[in-house]
């Protein structure tokens, strides 16, 4: 039920009244039905595509913001690990 993949809209079309578009999955292009996002999207936008239908427009700002938080968190963790390691190194040097 879940296989929805982000794709970028490269072309907008109309198929006998149905809003459709050509979407690009990182180098592979296919037609997708845009009826469920029609009033929100333009060429260049990213959408989540499930069985040939765009089911949502990717909120790029939100995505980038939350991802930056995650990335920072993971880098902080690396710093913590280093800091944790230093006292034990210091202790070892002073061991009798």
């Amino acid at each position, binding site marked *: 039920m879940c296989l929805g993949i982000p794709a970028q809209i490269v072309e907008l079309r109309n198929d006998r009244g149905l809003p459709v578009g050509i979407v690009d999955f990182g*180098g592979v292009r296919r037609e997708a039905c845009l009826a469920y996002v029609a009033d929100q999207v333009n060429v260049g936008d990213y959408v989540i595509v499930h069985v040939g239908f765009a089911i949502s427009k990717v909120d790029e700002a939100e995505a980038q913001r939350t991802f930056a938080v995650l990335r920072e968190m993971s880098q902080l963790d690396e710093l913590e690990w280093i800091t944790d390691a230093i006292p034990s190194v210091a202790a070892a040097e002073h061991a009798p």
Partner: protein
Amino acid sequence: MTATIIGSVSCPIPVTDHDRVVLGHGSGGKLSAALLKQHFLPHLQSDALRQLGDGAVVSAGNARVVLSTDTFVVNPLEFPGGDIGTLAVNGTVNDLAMMGATPCYLTVGFIIEEGLAFETLDRIVASMARAASVAGVQVVTGDTKVVEHGKGDGLFINTTGLGLADSDFSPSPDGVRPGDVVLVSGAIGIHGITILSAREGLEFEADLESDTACLHPLVQALRRATDNSVAALRDPTRGGVASALNEISAASRVGIVLEESALPIPAAVAGACEMLGLDPLYVANEGNFVAFVPPHLADVALDALRNHPLGRGAQRIGVAVSDHPGMVVMRTPLGGTRIVDMLPGDQLPRIC
């Protein structure tokens, strides 16, 4: 070898419960193996056949020759980067090359469906001629049959190749030892996705052309660089890299560990696989091979491949180990591991 025909799907259901052949028996996975074991080997007994290599090494008088045969069934007949004719030549030539042989001659058998346009046939035969010329082989004999309309999928081609065995160089699926490094000579999944993109019902456009190519020169470059020390070679056609590695793992009784982040997967292949829910490891290739080389030769081997036009995309993707013999596993970016098993039949596009 046959291309992965995903649109005309295959049947991975009970291996032993069949009273008739199903499509899955032709997919290169477990059902194919069962077909061989249960229906062919019991009757067709020979030492060479039992080894189940890409070809057979036999003696003819004082000469040691390698024979290989393959039948090509692909839909559509023509696709970006080649056609069934190109596959028919390169496929068999490559099987000989994987055995370390120098390909010399081909036979060709055509089964043509009534109604095939001569224009199409001419193009395909011209492709074969070109491919044979590039590969340095001659087509020396052949046969043609025509079947009724509706019984042939347009065209089937069988090619049988004869090559000269090389006593100094005989990579074999059972030749791998723990510690040997796994290399792939180029990007994976290109041919299978190209075919899929041309099939009805799954239509998508990809900037892809089949990678079908004669690999003999690349194999020679590798052997020179490693002084004939290539343990095993296989071209991962139907069933993909996963199936080829599983076969070698079983034959050599070693385990194999792959690094997911090292797999060279072109963006378009990744995109198509994501869209359809396919795993690139099971998608057919026609222009690359997996090679096992001793660890101290891995770097020179990789350099030799990358210096050749056919091997620019070569990567080191894993290593053979003594643990879990017969099993291929893959380390994921998260640090976990998962098993890469052979599929029963073909992969199916999925929605979940």
